[in-house]
């Protein structure tokens, strides 16, 4: 207790002294002055002359400067004062050598900035959690099925396979059963995101919508910013509950954050929703951490706000189309295994009760994963981000080694200064502190630059990756965590590159370095550690260059794949057709008008609608069965299908290998026809001519409309260049009740050039047609390969930086070595050595250092690069071309870097060199 009061008193006194420093100094001055005056008076009273009394008083008191220093020390100010002095001295030293400071601070800033940018992205994408109460308790449900599930079709919002799920979606009736049966162990809620046409304050726009069950807000524990949230009573019979809670973003954007928003209405498709509340800013819905849907409405509104095409707009009573996302908050104390087991039982009985399970179908099994990040778990980004984090970590290490090397060289120059300081009585730990202050100041410069670079660059990576993530823009938050990260990196970096040089400088011997011959006496030790650092730099650079080579070769490999169709002069447009109650005939007539209008646009060679754009990471599969297989329904297999316009094959440039493509003779009323590719022909019609054969989609029955194969086309890539061209079939839009989604247009001119004319043409057909996401096929491909692109370019950038740093390191070391050995070289030349021999000697030395670094680097690369195996294409992690290339490149860089010092060595004049010392 007494210890505590004393410490509190000390802290208070220290803070007081710190904050009122000027007053303190004046008071000390005044106190000592009073003492001198009083003493002088007393001495005069005892009979001394005034001058003698004053002198005597001063002698008795002793040096005032020293006393004041001790008084400050009593207040605990000494440490701070010394730090301030060190800092001022360090700043002066850094200002004195601007070249060194700039090089070091810049390379640190680049490295810290890159680390910060990657860190803030990784933090947000991989580690941030939903803005709800206790997000760690949330679970995301999904299912897996070993056999054929008793489900007609299912959706999935993310790459569920990566977490061992077939899909995370179930149907609404199954969800209700599942929730009711598992109430003891988990509170389940469900939601689904849609993007629909709507009108807010008179502005027609696309709105992101999250339809939620009535208990959604209750289970998540989210309170509204304004108004109320959606309640269980809102989520009643289908078509009722026309209320909406809007996002904080929409509230600010469209309503200026005004509380009068409550009671206003929003038009979404066929429904008018009344706004009852606004979400808090921190809540972004259950689907994603970083982006919020605009509107939250009860699930009961689905038939009106997100109607399905066709005759039945409602999804709520459908049991075999699984589309709804299910999450829940686990009850406390329920183990993961118990939770999964009881959900499994609940799902099995729900499926048995609601669906017919045939003998060849198996009941799906529940998979429970962490739901704290919602649906967008970005599992596929984990590995690339880990690679990038490792790479920037290496860059930072490299940059620290580089600065350490520069500091060592400076330390050698300043050895005399240190010896003089030691000789004058400086304590070694004070010297160590001084030198560390210098490196920390340097690190702080780099850290400040890095913070700025990281802040600017934080959105760069997500912007490049937006296509891969399937989301448009992501605003990476730059918060205290990023700031703390920078601070930590800065201090670590400062210690990393500062400690060794400071230690070696503070340890220097007083006597030896003050002697004239000191330089030769200490050379060996310094030379060795410098060489080791440069060797380490070479090794790190080798790692980075090898990684850059592997990713570059992957990108090149993917770019050189022939996708089976012509990607140049091809424009892709997403069409959003108005959602009207119209007959198939009316829709076909409109789509025909669209075909004609696009064909008439100047510069267009041909165009065709296609249901799924190629190489966009998208896939549509249909259960397909051939006539020959129809006796055995288990032979049905899902295959990739494309709905296409009649000029599809000529538009994409896919060759017809046998039979014919679609033509004007194929109409809505004529025989249903289809084209298959060679892979499908091989797989489903082995050893026979498929032309004239028939197949159908879904289970064949009595009134099955068979589709006749009229042609076989060449194989094309489908969703990604990485997969081998899969089996596919093509059906005609004219023969299917399905609205256009994507349009492919082959142009004679630059594809982008026709966009304005295209918009005008569509406006003429129907002003309600929206042209979304106009892009060329090449842009589309680039977007899906953005991960490969980013990895290749970033690692190439890091590799280049590494080479530059290695180059500086080798040059610095060799130049220093030549300068030191001028004397020796002069003697060699005087004794008859050839200049080429001297040059060779220097080059050999640098090559040895490089070779040692290369061996370590290549060994490291062989050990580490297998970790990136899954990210490569067409090459192994031990790609000999890349390894050889990296070795040759670094040897070349070493040769170039040491060429100038070697030439300088060879041009030494023996007489001058010998006179030199």
């Amino acid at each position, binding site marked *: 207790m007494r210890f505590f009061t*004393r410490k509190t008193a000390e802290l208070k006194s*220290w803070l007081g002294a710190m904050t009122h420093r000027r007053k303190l100094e004046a008071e*000390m001055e005044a*106190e000592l002055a*009073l*003492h001198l005056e009083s003493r002088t008076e007393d001495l005069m009273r005892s009979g001394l002359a005034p001058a003698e009394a004053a002198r005597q008083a001063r002698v008795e*008191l002793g040096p005032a400067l020293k*006393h004041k220093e001790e008084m400050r020390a009593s*207040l605990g100010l000494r440490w701070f004062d010394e730090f301030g002095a060190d800092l001022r001295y360090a700043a002066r030293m850094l200002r004195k050598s601007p070249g060194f400071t700039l090089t070091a601070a810049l390379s640190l800033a680049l490295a810290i900035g890159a680390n910060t940018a990657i860190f803030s992205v990784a933090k947000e994408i991989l580690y941030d959690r939903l803005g709800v109460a206790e997000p760690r308790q949330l679970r995301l449900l999904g299912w897996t099925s070993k056999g054929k599930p008793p489900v007609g079709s299912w959706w999935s919002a993310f790459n569920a396979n990566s977490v061992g799920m077939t899909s995370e979606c179930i149907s609404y009736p199954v969800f209700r059963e599942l929730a009711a049966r598992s109430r003891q162990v988990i509170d389940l809620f469900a939601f689904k995101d849609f993007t629909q046409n709507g009108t807010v304050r008179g502005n027609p726009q696309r709105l992101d919508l999250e339809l939620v069950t009535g208990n959604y807000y209750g289970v998540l524990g989210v309170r509204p910013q304004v108004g109320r949230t959606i309640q269980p009573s809102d989520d009643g019979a289908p078509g009722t509950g026309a209320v909406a809670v809007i996002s904080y973003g929409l509230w600010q954007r469209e309503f200026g954050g005004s509380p009068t928003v409550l009671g206003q209405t929003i038009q979404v498709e066929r429904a008018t929703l009344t706004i009852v509340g606004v979400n808090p800013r921190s809540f972004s819905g259950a689907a994603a951490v970083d982006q919020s849907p605009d509107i939250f409405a009860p699930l009961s509104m689905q038939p009106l706000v997100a109607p399905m095409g066709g005759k039945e707009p409602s999804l709520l009573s459908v049991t075999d189309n699984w589309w709804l996302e299910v999450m829940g908050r686990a009850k406390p104390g329920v183990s993961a295994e118990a939770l999964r087991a009881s959900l499994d039982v609940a799902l099995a009985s729900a499926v048995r009760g609601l669906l017919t399970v045939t003998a060849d179908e198996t009941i799906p099994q529940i998979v429970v994963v962490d739901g704290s990040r919602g649906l967008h778990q970005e599992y596929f980004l984990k590995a690339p981000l880990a690679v990038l984090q490792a790479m920037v970590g290496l860059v930072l290490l490299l940059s620290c080694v580089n600065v350490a090397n520069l500091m060592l060289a400076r330390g050698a120059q300043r050895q005399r200064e240190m010896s003089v300081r030691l000789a004058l*009585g400086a304590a070694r730990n004070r010297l160590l502190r001084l030198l560390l202050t210098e490196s920390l100041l340097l690190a702080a410069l780099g850290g400040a630059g890095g913070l700025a670079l990281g802040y600017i660059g934080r959105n760069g990576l997500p912007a490049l990756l937006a296509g891969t993530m399937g989301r448009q823009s992501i605003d990476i938050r730059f918060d205290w965590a990023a700031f703390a990260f920078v601070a930590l990196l800065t201090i670590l970096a400062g210690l990393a590159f500062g400690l060794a040089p400071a230690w070696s400088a503070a340890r220097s011997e007083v006597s030896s370095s003050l002697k004239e011959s000191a330089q030769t006496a200490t050379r060996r030790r310094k030379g060795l550690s410098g060489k080791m650092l440069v060797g380490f730099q070479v090794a790190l650079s080798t790692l980075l260059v090898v990684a850059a080579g592997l990713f570059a070769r992957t990108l090149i490999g993917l770019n050189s794949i022939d996708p089976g169709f012509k990607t140049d002069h091809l424009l892709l447009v997403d069409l959003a057709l108005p959602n009207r109650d119209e007959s198939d005939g009316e829709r076909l007539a409109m789509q025909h008008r669209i075909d004609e209008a696009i064909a008439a646009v100047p510069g267009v060679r041909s165009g065709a609608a296609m249901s799924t754009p190629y190489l966009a990471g998208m896939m549509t599969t249909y259960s397909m069965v051939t006539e020959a297989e129809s006796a055995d329904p288990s032979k049905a297999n899902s295959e990739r299908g494309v709905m296409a316009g009649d000029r599809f094959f000529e538009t994409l440039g896919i060759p017809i290998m046998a039979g014919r493509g679609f033509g004007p003779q194929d109409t809505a009323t004529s025989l249903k026809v289809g084209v298959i590719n060679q892979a499908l022909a091989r797989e489903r019609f082995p050893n026979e001519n498929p032309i004239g054969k028939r197949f159908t989609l879904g289970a064949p029955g009595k009134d099955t409309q068979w589709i006749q194969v009229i042609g076989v086309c060449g194989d094309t890539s489908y969703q990604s260049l990485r997969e081998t061209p899969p089996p596919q079939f093509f059906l005609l839009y004219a023969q299917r009740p399905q609205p256009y989604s994507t349009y492919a247009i082959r142009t004679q001119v630059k594809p982008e050039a026709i966009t304005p004319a295209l918009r005008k043409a569509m406006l003429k057909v129907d002003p309600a047609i929206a042209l979304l996401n106009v892009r060329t096929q090449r842009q589309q491909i680039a977007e899906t390969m953005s991960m490969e692109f980013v990895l290749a370019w970033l690692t190439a950038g890091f590799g280049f930086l590494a080479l530059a740093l290695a180059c500086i390191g080798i040059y610095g070391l060799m130049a220093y070595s030549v300068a030191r050995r001028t004397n020796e070289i002069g003697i060699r030349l005087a004794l008859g050595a050839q200049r080429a021999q001297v040059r060779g000697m220097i080059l050999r030395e640098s090559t040895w250092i490089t070779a040692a670094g290369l061996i370590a680097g290549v060994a490291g690369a062989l050990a580490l690069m297998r970790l990136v195996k899954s990210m490569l294409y067409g090459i192994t992690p031990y790609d000999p071309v890349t390894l050889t290339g990296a070795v040759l490149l670094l040897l070349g860089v070493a040769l170039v870097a040491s060429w100038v010092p070697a030439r300088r060595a060879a041009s030494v004049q023996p007489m001058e060199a010998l006179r030199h010392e």
Partner: protein
Amino acid sequence: MTPPKQDKTNDVLQGTLDLLILKAVSLGPLHGYGVLLRIQQISGEELVIQQGSLYPALYRLEHQGAIASEWGESENNRRAKYYRLTKAGRARLNEETEKWRRMAGIINVILRATPEEM
């Protein structure tokens, strides 16, 4: 080049300077020079305190909260910093006094020892 050796004769005093200061100010608030005078006066001019070490000690004691200071008028109408004992300081004075007495007693016993007692 080591710093000049301190005069060893006052070393005993150095250790007890804090105690003497606490005692001096316990008798009434004093400014720095007053502390010096009072200690010398009480000791019958026997003790000579190094004037330079007085102020760091005063600052140290104030820093630790054993004494507090405020500015006032000195006897010859000059602004002076007066030190007074705090509650914590009084506790410390009692404790240190006790310690000193025990120590002095022990040392006395040792010094009085004769060969016969061994």
